[in-house]
């Protein structure tokens, strides 16, 4: 089918965009378009009004501020990868680098990947592990919430139809953390995750002080596994036996927390087993990075 739209809006500010949405709450928000246009073309969503966010300056830009890193919702994967982040947000950058191919990365946005609501969304587990917050604008003003509260289920978020995701923020407290993103896929070129995981570790003097572990594509939403994090906390990363045991416990916790589905890509049994593998690999990679 050809792509059909009813009306096209190009607001210049968040307020303008909110005004359009207040009148047309079911309008589609267009950021990179890599999901939206496909969904329209394949009839997964109804054609409707489109609000193009490209002209909204506040939604763009990636800034390092005293209180952390702010990533505008329409920052593309390539912009993210080109940003001078040094060692910071490694899991997020690894996720962005695995998302789609070069062309997709040039268009796809961080906010779009989150708001599509895919359980397999690359940036989702990374941002969970980074302890990110999201800024949301709506008719009743602005609010901020942990990224975990954004996901509601496959293709669903907790945002109201007239709300817009403005930015993602990662606190300065995360600055010294090491992190990694890993996914299990079926080929080495463009693919989406069978399952994925991100691990972020605050390693101080060789000991994991604090940890976050997130898993993707193993439940209706990407999710944090606090038990996995707890298993890692207090472990001396130089003690291979202790690290192996802790990583194994984290993997087991993640497997237990998973309730994967069987679909054309993989069976539930394989997915569940791979959750353990991918969590171990993400943790190991984060430890390596933190050394």
């Amino acid at each position, binding site marked *: *089918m*050809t792509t*059909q739209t009813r009306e096209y809006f190009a607001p210049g500010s968040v307020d303008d965009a909110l005004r359009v949405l207040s009148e047309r709450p079911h309008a589609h928000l267009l950021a990179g378009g890599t999901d939206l246009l496909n969904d329209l073309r*394949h009839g997964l969503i109804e054609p409707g009004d489109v609000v193009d966010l490209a002209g909204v300056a506040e939604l763009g830009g990636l800034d390092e501020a005293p209180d952390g890193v702010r990533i505008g919702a329409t920052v593309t994967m390539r912009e993210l990868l080109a940003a001078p982040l040094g060692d910071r947000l490694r899991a997020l950058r690894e996720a962005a680098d695995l998302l789609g191919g070069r062309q997709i990365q040039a268009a796809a946005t961080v906010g779009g990947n989150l708001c599509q609501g895919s359980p397999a969304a690359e940036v989702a587990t990374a941002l969970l592990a980074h302890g990110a917050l999201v800024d949301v604008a709506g008719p009743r003003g602005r609010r901020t919430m942990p990224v975990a509260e954004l996901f509601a289920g496959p293709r669903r978020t907790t945002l109201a139809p007239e709300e817009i995701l403005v930015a993602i923020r990662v606190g300065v407290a995360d600055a010294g953390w090491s992190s990694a993103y890993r996914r*299990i896929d*079926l*080929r*080495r*070129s*463009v*693919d*989406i995750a*069978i399952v994925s995981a991100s691990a972020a570790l605050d390693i101080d003097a060789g000991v994991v002080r604090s940890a976050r572990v997130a898993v993707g594509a193993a439940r209706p939403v990407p999710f944090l596994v606090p038990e996995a994090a707890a298993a890692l906390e207090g472990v001396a990363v130089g003690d291979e036996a202790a690290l192996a045991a802790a990583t194994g416990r984290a993997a087991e916790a993640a497997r237990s927390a998973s309730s994967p589905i069987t679909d*054309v*890509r*993989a*069976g539930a049994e*394989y997915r569940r*087993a*791979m959750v353990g*593998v991918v969590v171990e690999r993400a943790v190991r990679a984060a430890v390596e990075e933190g050394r």
Partner: protein
Amino acid sequence: MTTTQDTIHETAAQGWVGRGIPQVDIEAKLRGQTEYIGDLRLPNMAHAAIVRSTVAHGRIRGIDTSRAERVPGVLAVATAADAPEVKFGPYTPDWEILARHKVRFIGDEVAAVAAIDEPTARYAASLVEVDVEELPAVFDPFAALAEGGPVIWDEYADNVSTLFTIERGDTRAAFDAADLVVDDVYATSRMYHAYLEPIGVIAHYVDGVHVLHVPSHIPYRARQTYSAALGLPLDKVRLVVPPIGGSFGAKYEMNTPLIAALLSRKAGVPVRILFGRDEDAAYHRPRPPFVFRNRIAVRADGTFLGRETDVVGIAGARTYWSPATVATAVHRPDSLYNFNAMTGRGRLVYTNESPTTAMRGFGNAEALFGIEQMIDEIAERLDIDPVEMRRRNIVQEGETSLHGWYISSSQLPACIERVSEMSGFADRRRARPPATAGERVGKLRGTGIALGHHVSGYRPILPDYDGSSAILRLGPDGSIQLYVGEPDVGQGHVTVMAQLAADELGVAPAEVKVQGIDSAFSPAAVGTLASRAATMAGMATVAAGADARRKLIAFATEQWGVPEAAVSWQAGTLTDTTGANEPFTLRQALHRYGVVNCGLPLLATGVHHPKTVMPDATKYGNASAAYPFAAHVAEVEVDCDTGQISVVGYWAAHDSGTVLNPQTARGQVLGGIAQGLGWALMEDVIMSEGVVRNPNFLDYRIPGAGDMPAGVEVEFVDAYEPNGPRGAKSLGEVALNPVVAAIANAIYNATGLRCKDLPISPERMWRYLHLGEPVESSSAGAIR
């Protein structure tokens, strides 16, 4: 090497043949200027949409097109009522332009709409009401073979579309004498051709002639099919072949061009049908899945004594090329290895699924997937080196194989030697594969070898004739046009034909314009299939070049009034060796020829009759002009935690005779390896209840750059084929044939697990590694 061959190699080195020049049409392709079917526009062209069956099997009670016809912008709606009541097909008359009494698979074409644009056509198509009385459907070939199940065609009550049997020698005695008998079942998967260019056609009914613009790789045969289906004489159907964006065997569409033809006649304007990728991936005609049971009888020294094979292939609901594919799967391996005696049976079975068709490798690649693994198993059990095992049993140059196929050239022993050296096979290969689950941990590497062969044309394709013909038109303006009937499907035949003609005429390849195919002026031809185009059209081109030279010399003789022996031809220049006349360059000669003959171009023709014979009633006889060979080695790394398999090294040594163009040849081999890698590890059209569940490139995965090993090594051994142009023979299919087996043998070497079903996906491998599932084909129980 003989002296003759050395002489020819020298000549080749001086000419254009043997040089890796870029494809002559590559710049236009890279710039996006090549006009494929999707780029063509005819004045007033309408767009069509097909109404497809949504049930797998049912009786059509009625079709109501009235609502569709009332949609503004609709120009015509066609149903079976608009088509002659004939059934047609390349092997079995089970094709209709549009389904008439029954629908037999989900996607079966029932009606079609032509409208002023595509959305209108699609909308109107959605309003066509098809009243179907649903019947029980069957999707499993063994269920279809069982008695009392659904019958798809009344004429074939057992659901067997084709039965192929063959017997050679005393197989029973061979098995009685055997020291070892291996008996195993292997199954291959349904594969999508995944060409760049989806199916498309423009039909234009003008002055009582159906002009069909179809990117067909078998235009002459397609024209026969289409004229028969339309109930018209051959000259009332004209086929024009635009550039083809990949085929791999798929671009001989049985009914889409005919649907467009019906609509064009009815609407009075040209009509285009152009599949999007989603429609193409959901309703294409895939590679038929096969189940093979093979028994091989061996003597303790590793000599093969006999072979029994039983093959079941899926036709889908109508019969395409699959009968020939089944025949190939049953008996072609006998010209790679000398099995000494064989008995074979192949059954092609109807199911309520999209018809399957030819794909690169054509049953042979499928058969070798099992046989090449069984040879490794035999070697292991007899404690013989797998390379030595193969060397001992291959059919050699100068031999006539079991079914009468004469191997006029084979450098396969050299291929085996070179690929072993290139890959360091003996050192790289794991001495003993892991034997227990405890040994299967971490990342395991393994190396495997497999051989492959194929044909260079196949006599039975077209009953009328084998071979090829070519026309050279040398204009008074100096232009050179070459007409052959074998289309380039993207592999570079236009370039090698230009190289061959250029050498004959003493010009550069860029000066030879190889014309697109149009049945109005191109020679009729068997087509580009069975790896035949370079060999057959190449020979015809060389013959046409020689004819042009003869005619030019005769013309100069006449013009100069000297004895013919006094006229010399060298590098495109005619010289009077008596010195009485100024020499003619080719351009001057052609100008002069035109002046003398009132504008007539010099027309030269070439006909090539290959030394092939139609196999007899027992399927005995040399069916192909020449046989190409290859030896491949793959190295894999298996991640035991995830089951993921990476091909980390790949080496290929080929005997394709003289290599006409090393660059395009290397491209063919790399493409074959990539396609085989995809088939081995990831490609699979997943069907349930007759529906394709992965009709897109996200879930039908083909390998990307990241999946190919870095630094694939390809080598062509020094070889010469007496029956091919300048010593060349085929390459297209043999490039794929060993790949899947080489990878599977490497996986066994890495893990000690023999994978007998395709694809060897991470999940499947993980199950073998972790759940202790029997590593036996899931079809083993059904065929035994």
